[in-house]
């Protein structure tokens, strides 16, 4: 049993990933280095990296706020908000890109008005940031929620009785036990954002050295027939997202469990 499953995983996962590594090394280490440090490649990787970091920051702030609101407070539309949080998890990321194009594209009312005052959203960074926020929305919220749920409200009450304001309660009582969950959510968001392709392909405009991200750059190189270049850039993206994923699975192992 274990042998047949092992063979299946090797054929489906290990061999293809090794093939990318091998192809990246085809031109030797110096060739791979040259491929990664081409100005267009470097810019695309840097853009992916920078946008992902920025989006993780936004996710942490709004994700924590959303989880706290959902767990702690009763407000009209609570169920709707909770349902909406789950949608990006299922909706194809390409469709996420289309949704934002429909809402904010040059032909839409909102997009037209923004363009009128000189703000381009779609085919520019603001739209790309929104799209990445969309596709990573559930991770921090859903990672933090169960931990918040299990916190003893009595601790909060005690702090309040002792005269602490809400902001102080969040910082001193709620935040410390949440850090591992925040790390998990951040890691998942980052891994997702750095490799995001579908939404970027439809709404980033894909202008080299401006809005072209790493994953779309890889597509361009594949289509141009340069698989060595594509593989070299892929390896960088792979390593970064695998590290993020490993951080997640390490933190996820509850300490002290057999």
């Amino acid at each position, binding site marked *: *049993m*274990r042998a*047949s*499953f*092992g063979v*299946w*995983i090797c054929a*489906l*996962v290990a*061999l*293809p*990933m090794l*093939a*990318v590594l*091998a192809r990246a090394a085809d031109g030797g280490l110096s060739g791979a280095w040259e491929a990664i440090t081409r100005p267009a490649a470097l810019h695309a990787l840097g853009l992916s990296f920078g946008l992902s970091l920025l989006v993780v920051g936004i996710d942490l702030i*709004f994700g924590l706020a*959303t989880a*706290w*609101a959902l767990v*702690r*407070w*009763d*407000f009209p539309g609570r169920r*709707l*908000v909770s349902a909406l*949080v*789950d949608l990006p998890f*299922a*909706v*194809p990321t*390409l*469709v996420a890109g*289309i*949704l*934002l194009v*429909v809402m904010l594209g040059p032909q*839409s009312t909102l997009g037209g008005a923004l363009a009128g005052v000189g703000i381009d959203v779609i085919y520019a960074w603001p739209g790309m940031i*929104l799209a990445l926020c*969309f596709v990573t929305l*559930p*991770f921090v919220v859903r990672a933090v929620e169960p931990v918040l*749920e299990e916190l003893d409200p009595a601790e909060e009450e005690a702090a309040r009785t002792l005269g602490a304001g809400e*902001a102080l309660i969040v910082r001193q009582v709620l935040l410390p036990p949440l850090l591992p969950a925040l790390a998990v959510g951040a890691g998942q968001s980052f*891994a997702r954002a*750095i*490799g995001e*392709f*579908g939404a970027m392909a*439809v709404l980033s405009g894909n202008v080299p050295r401006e809005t072209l991200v*790493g*994953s*779309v750059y*890889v*597509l361009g190189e*594949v289509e141009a027939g340069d698989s060595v270049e594509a593989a070299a850039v*892929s390896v960088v993206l*792979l390593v970064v*997202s*695998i590290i993020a994923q490993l951080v997640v*699975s390490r933190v996820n192992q509850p300490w002290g469990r057999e």
Partner: protein
Amino acid sequence: MTPRHRTKPQGFGLVVTAAAILWVVGLVGVPLGALLLAVGAEPAQVVSELVQQGGLDALGRSIVLAVFAVIVGGVTGTLGGIVLARQRFWGRAVLDVAVDLPLAVSPVIVGLAFVILYGRGGWLEPLATALGVKVLFATPGLFLATAFVCLPFFVREVALVLEEVGTSEEDAARTLGASEWQVFVWVTLPQLRGALRVGTLLTVARALGEFGAVLVLGGAIEGRTQTATTFVHTMMEERHDAGAFGMSLILAAMTVLLVQALPTGARTKH
């Protein structure tokens, strides 16, 4: 645990709650509404582009891929879940990490990996040629891409449930003289019903939505390797916005229904 008593937000809580509502509704709700309006504004145009540009054929292909992914994932995932949950062996940790890898790999890189593997000079090109199978820009490539991206779902669900239920019932059946096969069919499989259901829903949603890998491997050839998602992409590039929006709405509706059918808590584990 007693259910938490929620009160109306006040003070700082009110500010945070309002920000959260605006964020979530603005980011997800409003764009969905905008798509509905856009499709509702010209339904005839949407339907005609969907039909005339090959949208139905593409959607059908995506559904076939999803069914395939469920069958392959269900069988290999049950096997893999049992192996990971019940057996201890050299290399188990590596398998464990490898199963989660598809969650971390960008879809384009999945496509690239199989292109390198089965393309000219690839390690498996001789094997595919010997078997007479054309992988790239053909249906087998779509199958491979879909199987790859859906790999973790069944394995993880099955392994999780098996770890939770333990082996006491299986051991009891063995003590009573059941064969391994009988234990699997009459004890293990019924315990896995919920896990297989969740695995199916997640796999279908993922298979329907896969884009990057099927684009690179399949090439989005109309009538042959065009899927629902690559259809949306092609329509956008050809300025057939109505067709792109229509298919997007179909995909959004299908995946939203799938996620609603999931038990709470099973939605974002992956």
